[in-house]
């Protein structure tokens, strides 16, 4: 899986949920969306990226991926 592609997908999801004023709810929304629609190998790749680098992910998405990894 090209990580650049997954980063873009994750940030796009983040952009939708970013309009939610409560960022805790927004991060939960991103996490659930990824959990419910991404194949495990994609989730594994984005979690690994987030843990090892994560610089291209928005802050909100990073929070969500961290929740996803937990």
């Amino acid at each position, binding site marked *: 899986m090209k990580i650049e*592609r997954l980063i873009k997908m994750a940030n*796009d*999801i983040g952009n*939708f949920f970013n*309009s939610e*004023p409560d960022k805790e709810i927004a991060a939960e929304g991103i996490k659930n969306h990824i959990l419910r629609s991404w*194949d*495990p190998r994609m989730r594994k790749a984005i979690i690994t990226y987030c843990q090892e680098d994560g610089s291209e992910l928005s802050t909100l998405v990073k929070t969500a991926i961290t929740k996803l990894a937990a």
Partner: protein
Amino acid sequence: MSINKEKDFGTPAAASENMVTLEIDGFQVTAPTGTSVMRAAASIGIEIPKLCATDSIEPFGSCRLCVVQIEGGRGMPASCTTPVAEGLKIVTQNKKLADVRRGIMELYISDHPLDCLTCSANGDCELQDMAGVVGLREVRYNPIETHLKAEKDHSNPYFSFDPSKCIVCSRCVRACEETQGTFALTIDGRGFDSKVSPSQNQPFLESECVSCGACVQACPTATLMEKSVIDNGLPEHAIVTTCAYCGVGCSFRAEMKGEQVIRMVPHKDGKANHGHSCVKGRFAFGYATHKDRITKPMIRASIKDAWQEVSWEEAINHAASELKRIQAKYGKDSIGGITSSRCTNEEVYIMQKLIRAGFGNNNVDTCARVCHSPTGYGLKQTFGESSGTQDFDSVMKADVIMVIGANPTDGHPVFGSQMKKRLRQGAKLIVIDPREIDLVKSPHVKASHHLKLRPGTNVAMINALGHVVVTENLIDEAFINERCDVAAFAKWKTFIAEERNSPEASESVTGIPAAELRAAARLYATAGNGAIYYGLGVTEHSQGSTTVIGIANLAMATGSLGHDGAGVNPLRGQNNVQGSCDMGSFPHEFPGYRHVSDPVTHQLFEKAWQTELSSEPGLRIPNMFEAALDKSFMGLYCEGEDIAQSDPDIKHVHAALRAMECVIVQDIFLNETAKFAHVFLPGSSFLEKNGTFTNAERRISPVRKVMSPLAGYQDWEVTQMLANAMGYPMNYSHPSEIMDEIARLTPSFTGVSYEKIERLGSVQWPCNDEAPEGTPIMHTEHFLRDNGKGLFMLTEFVPTAERVTAKYPLILTTGRILSQYNVGAQTRRTENVAWHSEDRLEIHPHDAEDRGVKTGDWVGIKSRAGETVLRALVSDRVQPGVVYTTFHFPESGANVITTDNSDWATNCPEYKVTAVQITKVSQPSEWQQEYSAFTEKQLELLEQGISHD
């Protein structure tokens, strides 16, 4: 006309609930007010002679053959134009009437060729019938001048026009006006010179005629006659089935001679089409027996090898062994499948069952991924169900119709005609589209507002509409309080009322003048029943799902849901988009849109399918390509879908297909994807199998086998054989058994059965204990979310990453045309190429002039993804800065230039926004030249392998 004639009541049914009772030929009859005497008589079996009347169009009263006498009345009124009234006493037969009718027929026949025995309508001619009915035995006139030598027009590829046989009854003209709404025909001249004229006395093919066939259907003689009947004679039996083209799902009578389809005639009782058709469904069925059909299974080790014809057993065993080998080598999740909206519900169901239960993973996806997946997501989130809310007939109660990113007269022509009928009755129209589609201005139809937005700004536009509704207090508070989640509404209300969402603030983004947008919002919110219809111009964007949500918000805010004439209506592109999604062909959902991780559903399917199932979402189509290039997805079973032509960034798709170790294609033709395949399993056309399709209004309609499968098996049987070879047993003996299983396992389908479909003709889901005969309109009392409340969601506008720059200054957007269908695999193999034989690039005159481009010039279209070459069509239907093309021909390479941008929620590709530059060129692009050579090589490899017996 049609063989085994359906009953013709002469005039349309009246809608009134007030009944009157009268007497006809001594028999009492009760009929609704507004019914004609002719129809009332027909309803009790009294057939009054007629020629100019037929029940699909309003009465005209010109032929006078249907005259009757009314006790106490004067003269002989025409029964077709005389309405019933309480206490009338009608006489339809006496000597006086018989003399008048015989006299009329004598006049008609005096100017009609007496070649009945060799006429193509012999046995199916109303003029011939009426001559018999009135007892015409002689023609006393010897006319000085006749029309018998009038020149025939054979220009239309599907029907002939022989004016020598025309009785100028105007049925064709009225059908073109009332049924189709094109107004292409007229009666030119007066008196003896009167004649049917397409446009300005032009040949049919050159006229405005859209070849829908309504005129042919209405013609009582052989004047307008299908060429297939002229060539083959009349059919001898008919079978009712469902069209395999667009999401309207028209019902047709396949009129047959043995196993040969002679003609497809729209079925009067079809609830989606009410006896109407378009050029594709009516005439473009010849692909089913085209010489390009492949009817024997084939295999090869590599795409560089020649194909080798093998037995079904060998092909299936080889496919299964390859899939098992790949799983052993790369893991259980390394294979998957793609279903198609062209497949029946039953085919899709067992395909996803094979993948989930037989392959042991959820790597199943469908072509809805690239069209309406955002509809599924957006409507599920807001309303609780992934479907449109209304039946098609609901449009006849709409007071204002908003069409967003759809082109119904081209993409969904039969529904487009129904919509135009309502617009002619006075409903208002708002069109939101970057391009001037036909609906904006056509005969007797004119949009009140055309919001010509810039591609990629749908969310800003829909937010601005919502802003006006909220800030001008046009909301339906009672509906919101009773039917919606009020806390979510309050949050949305605050968001949408922010100034940045106002029409004025978004004008610079959308390009829509703020005043125009405000006026459109007011019209939608205040004109009465407001109905929204939308298409791929909404979904195929990076914010496709957000726009769907925005549409749902707008409809809820104005209370435009849950009743006739309103609603949110996605116009589905292909025949079974709705059904293929319903059947569980998304990688995260079981049939009925239930998540694979939902414990109750998971347990239900594990028990029913008697195997362990994965609770993890599988790969979507674009993810499959990524995984293939990553060597973690190496085997694909693709049925009825042509991803190598239809999916975006096609070079990437081709690379992924080349990377896979086994690609199995099941199709009726060696399509573009099959050129990358290792196993070819010949499919069956819609005429060769039993099953059901579900149209855009959730209507499940029967697909019936009218001829034997050319390759020996129906598609569901092939999938079943593969499942058995994979070691997962399937033993269905008929698709009705598959539907029974679907009904057992899917709450919205529990009441569906073939017996019920046979009895009712079709049925709209949800069909269960709550709605045993189906549900025409959804959400009438509560939404289908867990708490029953509609959910408002925030819809922030996020500009697409695909921006115009000095290097790529124009936006390319794509669409389809009436005569061609999707990737064109079917319609390119019919005479429909007479209307559209190549894809062209529409470019505004200003942009064309800047580049020295004229209509017909070859132009290079270069994007960040690639380059292709098309011929230009200079047109002011597109706005400056926007270019447009269709994607019906593989050599066009429209998807060489589309990018891998996609919807945030569903990965639906952003086909509608690609930044490009246009330059005048003199030769095809490098890709086109390479692909042409590749195609030539693949056809050679096919030719080397196939037998010609």
